[in-house]
């Protein structure tokens, strides 16, 4: 069993599907509107390491790392990543990935790593692992392998040592999900993360794909909504200077004029509509959530939801 569709997963699937994968499975089954997809399970990665004998090699490289020396971390990372990228994916795994991809009937997918130690309540690996958007069939396998190797970027290695995870076996699953070409996208904290007010949720929204917001390279609109009666407490409209849009299979940075970028990204009615979805997600998980969302053709999609770890 190397692959499971979202429907076959739930929140207990973290060890095989990673935090992200498990969460997408859980949401799909809870009828939360997530874009469809499947997970290349951690067992695939492990099988891959075994068949290629890379597991032994990687371990010996990591042993020699002095994590206080950035050069040593970088050298180790380079070596390991080259090894993973250069190895050939076992044929049965490759076939299965391709078969599931076809079932999605989507030209573009997002390929994301989903570390099995990620998203647990204690370690928020915010932005630590990699994402490949707009992946087509041609690059699919290559990007899955890149996601595997993202477990060994310098900052991931550094993070492992910082969090004393370097001796634990950390595996990685890969999420393959239909791309949502969002007109507006953003993030939502179902509890105000600054004031820690449990009666308020914070929604951030920006034009285009969500990557610009997640990475912090644009300042999004901020909306604050009261969770009891869904009254809007604050609307802070930013002037978005650029947005990420898809062109072919590439993401382009598109400049926005102050007039275009200074528009309110979601209308009041849309804000309220989304707030209701977000509250339901929180209710389902019985814990404050950090949600990534997208809006396209009149519909909201949830691209990720995980517990807020810093409350």
């Amino acid at each position: 069993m190397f692959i499971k569709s979202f429907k076959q997963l739930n929140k207990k699937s973290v060890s095989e599907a990673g935090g992200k994968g498990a969460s997408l499975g859980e949401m799909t089954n809870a009828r939360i509107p997530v874009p469809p997809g499947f997970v290349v399970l951690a067992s695939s990665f492990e099988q891959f390491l075994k068949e290629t004998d890379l597991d032994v090699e990687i371990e010996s490289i990591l042993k020699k790392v002095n994590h206080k020396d950035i050069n040593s971390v970088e050298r180790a990372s380079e070596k390991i990543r080259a090894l993973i990228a250069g190895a050939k994916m076992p044929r049965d795994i490759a076939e299965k990935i391709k078969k599931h991809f076809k079932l999605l009937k989507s030209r573009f997918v997002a390929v994301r790593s989903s570390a099995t130690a990620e998203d647990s309540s204690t370690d928020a690996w915010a932005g630590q692992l990699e994402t490949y958007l707009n992946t087509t069939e041609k690059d699919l396998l290559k990007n899955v392998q890149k996601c595997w190797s993202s477990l060994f970027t310098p900052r991931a290695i550094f993070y492992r040592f910082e969090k004393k995870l370097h001796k634990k076996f950390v595996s990685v699953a890969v999420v393959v999900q239909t791309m949502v070409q969002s007109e507006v996208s953003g993030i939502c904290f179902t509890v105000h993360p600054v004031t820690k007010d449990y009666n308020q949720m914070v929604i951030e929204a920006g034009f285009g794909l969500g990557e610009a917001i997640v990475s912090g390279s644009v300042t999004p609109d901020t909306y604050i909504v009261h969770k009891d009666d869904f009254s809007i407490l604050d609307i802070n409209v930013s002037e978005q200077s650029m947005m990420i849009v898809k062109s072919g299979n590439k993401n382009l940075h598109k400049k926005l004029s102050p007039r275009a970028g200074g528009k309110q990204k979601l209308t009041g009615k849309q804000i309220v509509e989304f707030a209701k979805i977000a509250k339901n997600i929180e209710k389902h998980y019985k814990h404050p959530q950090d949600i990534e969302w997208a809006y396209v053709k009149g519909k909201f999609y949830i691209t990720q939801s995980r517990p807020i770890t810093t409350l």
Partner: protein
Amino acid sequence: MIKPHSIKNLIMETNMNLFSWTMIEDGFLFSPSVKRFVGDYFSNTVMHVSQDEGQWGVDIKLWNRLGQKIQDRLTKGKLDAHGNLEEHIYHGQIVFKLAHQVIDQDLRRWNDKKYLSWLKQVFKHYVELNGLGCLAVVSDYDHNFFSNRLAGILEKYSTPKNPTQKYLAILISPDQPDLNWAELLRLLEIIKQYKTLNKIVVSKKFKAHAKKYKWLNFGYQGPLWTDEDFIQRVRKILKNEKTAQEQLNEHRNYFRNLEKEQRRIEKDLGLSDHEIYMFDQARTLMFTKAYRLNVRHVIQYALETVFLQLAKKHAVPVYFFRYALRNEILDFVSGKKIDTVEILRRRHRVLKIVSNRKIKFIPANKIDATLGRILEKAIEIKQDYIEGQSAFPGKARGRAKLVFGIPDLQKVTHDDILVAVTTTPDVLPAMGRARGFVTDSGGITSHAAIVAREMKKPCVIGTKFATKLFKDGDMIEVDADKGIVRKV
């Protein structure tokens, strides 16, 4: 055009908003009944509001000339404070009636059309009322023409044995009750009836009382008096060495005694009929001011009630209405397209200029320059701070260290504040050392914000210009409780 350095009178006020202040200014500028005696005397004004704090100014020469004119006309009997008060009361009664159509009423059945017609009526009478108040306000503000005149009258009768200035306060005390007086009287009666604190606060009468008068101190945007506020007042009254009955008697007899005292002073000093008339005008203006406050508080509370309903209905924050002008509110409720984003932005900072009765908003990046040009003296508007959003609360001081890339990381020591356009995981080691973070872009879910919460360090994000305003080595303070970063 407003003449350079012509604006002096800066009235400053906290806990107010653009809407409420504009209602007052509109009264001065636009209400028909005021044009009669105001003419064009203050067609030039400036209103600067930021985060519910405001400064209002007017062309000082014109203002003083108007003050002089009002004083002359009052003296000559061409303007009459009693007539002015009567007009106040006419509009005031309508406003009270309108207010009570919404306060503690079930508004679920109200549709936009109904709100619209209510708002139109309120705006009409409230603006009239504010305009009428111009007489009381301008007669004496800043230049003190009127009170100087009254003091001058008393001066004539002053002897070393009997310095008469002490009578001024008594002679101009209003000789009729306002709502604050009435409220206290009723509270004293309740206290007298139920005697002990425990019995008072559970009584139906007390609860009804606290509900009826909760708006009496509402100001422009609240807060309301709570039950606790009323309980505190009861405690205070009970602590007084005089019994509730004694206090009640005193309070009841206040106006009778005051009147006796005023007549006695007039007689003792031998004031002329015209001088007596002048003090009577002054008293009436003083009462008018008190009455205006009562009306303003009730209608501001009623408006706030309606704004809350409309905000919910139309999915906007309630402060949208607090920063809109009345015609914008009417357009919005009647479904016309208006620039809501521009109105929402005003809460951060807005400069409204009226020149020859035409309203103009100054764009944010020109506010400081415009103020510098038209104010008599530059007030502290020089920008040495920057505002953003707080990502993790707390305060930290240190030297600014600008980080644009990995080579900058080594600059950052344990005493520094990290300033960056935005942060990435690569910057983590430097963030571990810094006392706090400031970024130009990003929201509360940006990398810097997440790390700040994880590391529990003060962080202000989305400041737009921090990397331009601060230089390496500047001593700065991150006040993430307020979302401000300033040079120190």
